[in-house]
């Protein structure tokens, strides 16, 4: 699964992109976030407060309780601030 990070999530993790294979049982964005938080101190910093995070699956915004299903690309980022 390809992961993309943006804004301060990207900065905290230390990269904008990584490929991971989450273990069985990680079936939602929320579970993915909890699992990612365990991968490094930077990940822990980025994923400590899921309420501050938003996500997209295959370039569509989804709520954090969305099932990963057969997602190819998952993006995690702060609430958007364009315009």
């Amino acid at each position: 699964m390809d992961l993309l990070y943006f804004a301060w999530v990207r900065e905290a993790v230390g990269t904008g992109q990584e490929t991971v294979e989450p273990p069985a049982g990680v079936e939602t964005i929320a579970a993915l976030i909890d699992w990612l938080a365990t991968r490094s101190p930077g990940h822990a910093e980025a994923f400590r407060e899921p309420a501050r995070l938003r996500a997209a699956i295959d370039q569509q915004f989804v709520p954090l309780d969305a099932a990963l299903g057969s997602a190819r690309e998952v993006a995690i980022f702060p609430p958007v601030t364009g315009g």
Partner: protein
Amino acid sequence: MIRVSVDPAPIELAVEVAALEARGAGGVATFTGIVRGDDGVTALELEHYPGMTEASLVALAEAAMARWDLLGVTIVHRVGAMAVGERIVFLGTAAHHRREALDACAFLIDRLKTDAPFWKREHRGGATRWVEARHSDEAAAQRWSGIGD
């Protein structure tokens, strides 16, 4: 006609407006967002999600075309580094009736704020800070929820 552009180059407002005016409409409405220098901000950076950004802006323009009787919709968003006083975003609509052009323009900017994957970082001298999303933007976007949307 839909035109969507996500570009690090400065926004050429006169060119964008001319294209909308050439659609044969009776009215053109625009909204331009500008980097404000108050509050100590010296520069702004815009990060985005390539691919998803363009798709979300096209979807937004299509939603406006479906909801109002428009002859043209233009959405141009700048990305990368920009200075105080420069344009961040330009929204423009062309329609036979002024109410359609104006309402659609307001819809575009309200929805863009919540529906398009951009992130702003402010520079104040050497310091930088990611801008926090505002609840008022969510409320403004909700205003347009409903049938046919």
